[in-house]
């Protein structure tokens, strides 16, 4: 089925500011597919971001959009969602934004099980600020602040979020847009905190320093390492090192959502003590 993207795009804001071939475009396309599929009306939807290349995405989307401070998008989204829990609230963020400066909000929103979807475009680098290493830069990879190779082990965002209590956790990648769109759609439809890591390419800042200056080289580097969770589990430890699992990695539909808990409390207090 063909997707009509334009109702969700601010056409007048194009062309976009991203480098040709940047993975963020695939994420945006997947999000719109999911919006359309779930029939989320633009005026009933909000997309919130922090700072970075990925965080410029809301500007191109014709929904309610808020471009906030570095790392803090989830906190703004929490206020919006709590006040209007009947609406759809999505956070789009980069790896540095979400898991370094914003890491605290990420784990606590997950723990709260508030009905937000957080999508992290993980391109392993700080793109906008000039290629500094991020919490997800692979060990040994080069960055503008790791000229001799990164000495810090990377976060596994999926494990981090499962550990933090997220009730839906998926990982996709920009080499498979169709699959990614299905993960994002499932995340949007999930009642509770949902998280999608998108393994993505920043050939400009990461690729260029790591022998993958061409976008397709970096996308292939990603696609070649992506395997299903099942396949990954059956791999030897040495093989696992060279791959990463994709799929819906965790799902719990039993746990009550935070805003629902709150609305229940309000209803109970009203009953006990009518205004």
């Amino acid at each position, binding site marked *: 089925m063909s997707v009509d993207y334009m109702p969700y795009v601010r056409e007048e804001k194009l062309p976009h500011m991203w480098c040709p071939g940047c993975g963020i475009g695939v994420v945006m396309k997947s999000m719109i597919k999911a919006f359309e599929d779930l029939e989320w009306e633009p005026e009933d939807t909000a997309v919130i971001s922090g700072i970075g290349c990925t965080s410029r995405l809301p500007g191109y989307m*014709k929904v309610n*959009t808020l*471009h*906030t401070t570095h790392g*803090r998008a989830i*906190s*703004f989204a929490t*206020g919006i969602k*709590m*006040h209007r829990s009947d609406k759809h609230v999505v956070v789009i963020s980069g790896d540095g934004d979400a898991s370094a400066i914003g890491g605290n909000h990420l784990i606590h929103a997950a723990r709260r099980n508030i009905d937000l979807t957080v999508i992290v475009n993980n391109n392993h680098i700080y793109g906008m600020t000039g290629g500094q290493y991020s919490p997800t830069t692979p060990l040994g990879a080069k960055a503008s602040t790791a000229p001799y190779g990164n000495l810090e082990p990377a976060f596994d965002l999926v494990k981090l979020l499962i550990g933090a209590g997220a009730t839906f956790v998926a990982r996709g990648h920009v080499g498979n847009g169709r699959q990614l769109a299905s993960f994002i759609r499932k995340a949007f439809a999930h009642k509770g905190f949902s998280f999608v890591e998108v393994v993505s390419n920043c050939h400009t800042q990461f690729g260029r320093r790591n022998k993958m200056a061409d976008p397709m080289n970096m996308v292939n580097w990603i696609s070649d390492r992506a395997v299903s969770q099942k396949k990954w589990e059956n791999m030897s430890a040495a093989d696992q090192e060279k791959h990463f699992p994709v799929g819906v990695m965790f799902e719990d539909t039993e746990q009550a959502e935070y805003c629902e808990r709150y609305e229940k409390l309000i209803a109970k207090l009203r009953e006990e003590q009518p205004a």
Partner: protein
Amino acid sequence: MSENGHGVKFWPGNIVVAEAAVAAGCNFFAGYPITPSSEIAHQMSLLLPRGGGHFVQMEDELGAMGAVIGASLAGAKALTATSGPGMSLKLENLGFGYMVEAPCVVVNVMRGGPSTGLPTHPSQSDLMQARWGTHGDHPTIALAPAFHQEIFLETIRAFNLAEQFRMPVILLIDEVLGHLSEGVVPPERDAYEIVERAHDSGEPDKFLPYDVTAGDIPPFRPYFDGATWHTTGLNHDETGFPTTDAKHIQQDMYRHYRKVLGNRDVIDKVEYYMADDAEIGIVSFGSTARAAMAAVKQAREQGVKVGLLRPVTVWPFPKDQVYEFGRDKKYLIVPEFNLGQMVYEVERAVHFDRPIKRVNKVGGVPIYPSEILAAIEEVA
């Protein structure tokens, strides 16, 4: 919370803030535990869900400020409360609130600093932080009530000013006021006004979030109200989208200033005490002004003609009122519970033309009336 007849409540200042916030229509609170402001959060967590509002204890101060601004943009009347170190943390997102013009109220129950300082002791050392704390140019509205009844009314006024001028408003109290219990008579609902932000009522798809063609305060439309709009902490134009047009940015930043400085008749507030024939003038705010009033009274009993000007709105600083009050005074005295902050504004207000005596103190023990009296006697 005890009640002693005729509607008089005997409440600590922090409880007064929370009760007044709810009376002002506040329906959202996000905070983070910090002494000596925590009782505001306690009370909000108790009151808000009863009225259908929402309380959340965030994972940090920046998060609390972010949630408050988010809720505000979705249409809520939102409050957060903190103290010194927490205020320092909030500042980045507070600046975001100024930039996107999100109405909200931020309470700073001042304690000693810098750093962790004196968590359970008062101070007035965040006066300049309230004005200049976040980076960049912006106007500030900050209110500093001195009595519990006034805390109630100024909390309501803080919400009203935030709504009217579409910006964060800071309420400055301190540990003494926050923890001291004092009688308050909460006003009946019809005795005070509740201001709502001006709402855009045009076609949703023609909505411009920063349309200032009709005045300096852009009409507001909450998220999910038919329109789809954007805003950002980047300098932006009337569409809410970033701009680097120097001319536009300069005009827009001046507009922000005009919102406040062009409406001083609504924003300014000073109180006088025995000021009519005073030859010596005291300028003091908040809890220290209470000690100053006691000192004025005692000095008057000794025949010294001394009077007080007490800024209730501390930012914008009431420079014209201080000039009028101070220009013919033999001496001015500025007692403040810090090492000298408001005195700079007083000096400027009187064109550096009057002798000024500072009375300063830090360390957690408030300035006593006797210390201010001694200063009066010295210059009398």
